[in-house]
């Protein structure tokens, strides 16, 4: 599979900017969440993807808009890329009645199925049990194929979660059935406090795929264009019948597991090293070096996403909490209880 084909070379200026926009927006949404968290407006924990926005965005950017994503908690960038309106995230984190889960489930646990013929993605948030998304992702791509509207499913998974039985069973099944599933396995050096050396005895996370006989590659996860290139090749291959693939990304979780975790178990030198490799900074630099965009273009986007995130948070803040009278509604079919659809938006660069 390693190939020299670089799909990123075909990206337009708008696309270059759009990728940055999605990553920046993801970061700004999270920055807003931190503020809300400090104000005790976030219910439960807050999990940052700081330093990983690039790989989430660049991998999702390789998809078509009608494909399926199964993000994990740290794939905020995948959600912005597929067009989830930021307000949807804030609603979820604040457990509002207006959220897709109507306050019943956590953070990014939201689900979107497009109406027939709609040019929209399938979005299936995780459940907390790590690894479970992988068999479900395989089922989504298989089911879509059976239903006659094939798509490629992309699922993200942490280094830690690759140690679960569900990951193994799901990816092996997808491999055998040649299901168009691209798994992005994120080596961000830790699973909570557990360093990758206590998680797996392989040097490269993509070797997890060697047990399944599927294409796999490891890429610098903080180099957005590199991620995009490999993801795009894998997605295209999957779409044209190549079956499942695994894209390993080498990156770093730049904060603790969640807001409560000061991550003192992470050597400072490691953090410093990776801070210098911030994916957004690097991307800006690369794009500018290519002459595609200028400092001001990025500054404009930064201003735009910052105020957009702030405004969306504000809108969500004002929304009502769930009505306790609705508690028992919708456990079973037939007791219909309206589910707010996830609102999808286009970027200014679309």
């Amino acid at each position: 599979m390693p190939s020299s084909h670089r799909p990123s070379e075909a990206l337009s200026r708008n696309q270059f900017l759009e990728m940055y926009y999605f990553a920046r927006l993801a970061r700004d949404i999270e920055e807003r969440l931190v503020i809300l968290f400090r104000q005790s407006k976030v219910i439960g924990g807050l999990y940052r993807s700081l330093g990983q926005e690039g790989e989430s965005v660049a991998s999702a950017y390789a998809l078509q808009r009608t494909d399926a994503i199964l993000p994990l908690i740290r794939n905020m960038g995948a959600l912005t890329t597929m067009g989830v309106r930021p307000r949807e995230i804030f609603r979820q984190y604040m457990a509002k009645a207006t959220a897709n889960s109507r306050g019943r489930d956590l953070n990014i646990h939201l689900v979107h199925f497009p109406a027939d013929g709609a040019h929209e993605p399938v979005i299936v948030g995780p459940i907390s049990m790590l690894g479970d998304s992988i068999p479900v992702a395989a089922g989504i791509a298989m089911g879509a194929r059976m239903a006659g509207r094939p798509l490629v499913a992309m699922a993200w998974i942490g280094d830690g979660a690759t140690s679960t039985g569900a990951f193994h069973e799901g990816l092996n099944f997808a491999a055998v059935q040649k299901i168009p599933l691209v798994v992005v396995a994120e080596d961000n050096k830790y699973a909570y406090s557990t360093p990758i050396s206590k998680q797996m005895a392989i040097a490269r996370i993509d070797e997890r795929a060697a047990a399944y006989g599927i294409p796999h590659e490891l890429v610098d996860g903080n180099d957005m264009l590199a991620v995009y290139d490999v993801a795009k090749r894998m997605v295209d291959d999957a779409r044209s019948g190549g079956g499942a693939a695994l894209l390993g990304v080498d990156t770093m979780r730049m904060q603790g597991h969640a807001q409560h975790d000061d991550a003192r178990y992470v050597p400072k030198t490691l953090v410093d090293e990776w801070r210098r490799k911030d994916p957004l900074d690097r991307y800006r630099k690369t794009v500018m070096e290519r002459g595609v965009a200028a400092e001001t273009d990025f500054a404009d986007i930064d201003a735009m996403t910052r105020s957009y995130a702030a405004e969306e948070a504000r809108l969500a803040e004002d929304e009502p909490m769930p009505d306790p009278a609705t508690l028992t509604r919708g456990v079973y079919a037939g007791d219909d209880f309206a589910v707010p659809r996830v609102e999808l938006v286009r970027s200014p660069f679309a």
Partner: protein
Amino acid sequence: MALLTYLEAIRAALHEEMARDERVFVIGEDVGPYGGAFKVTDGLFDRFGAARVVDTPISEIAIVGAAIGASYMGMRPVCEIQFIDFIANAFDMLTNFAATSRYRNGAAASIVVRGPCGGGVGGGPFHSLNPESFFLNTPGLKMVEPSTAHDAKGLLKAAIRDDDPVLFFEHKFLYRRAKDEVPDEDYVVPIGKAAVRREGRDVSIVTFGAMVHTALDAAAKLSSEGVEAEVLDLRSLAPLDRETILESVAKTSRALLLHEATRTGGIGGELAAIIAEEAFEYLDAPIVRVASADTPVPYSPPLEAAFLPNVDKVVEAAKRLVKY
């Protein structure tokens, strides 16, 4: 009408549902050309092809997980678990992912998970379980277990057409032993409705699955001794048909709860709680449970015979109750 075994009835339901609805497909271990360990899916592969009869690796998590995903895309998966004991391996996927899905995001996990349960065939501790009560504390999940060929077919059709996840227990002792008249035309047995298999005024035997036959045999014996037992076949274990249960107990004033799973923590507890809470004023005697002994299912026939409920144990308990 046709005289079918329980197993044939299940197979017929699969054939008919797959023919009726293109979205229905079967997924599991050895369900394809081989036709399943018990031959339940026999003929499906030849008729509907590999795309709709999916042989999987030995991966119960993947079977249930992939079914959930496919159902999200509008399909109607029917998972076969080779022995239902192995659903333990997918316990998380079924209870946490599938059962909560609608409640959380309105996403229907319209899957059926079916497989052979129950003992009496020398299967030992891992091929004989009746795991219903492992799943009874899981809102969002439905569970059924037929006792006749008629119900097996009708309940499976209902399960497949149901928009919620349904665990469908097939008692393997009945596969080839239960044989009864099954209508030729399409029908469903609605989930949530119990059946009164025998009317009686003296004691209500509330049961399901293979134990229905034990209960009926016991009732016949009791009748010859002047005790008229009513036999209730729950059919649906989640939701339970509270009305029918309470009506029967209101009539007989005595409840004997009979199940094949081990006693402590079995579904008899839930039944007892419903009755003791809602039919207390009608009760003339303690609620009695007859169930398997509190041990793993032993393999050796003399042990398994001692382990399982049987006609004598039911008769004895019913007589004690009536005498109370």
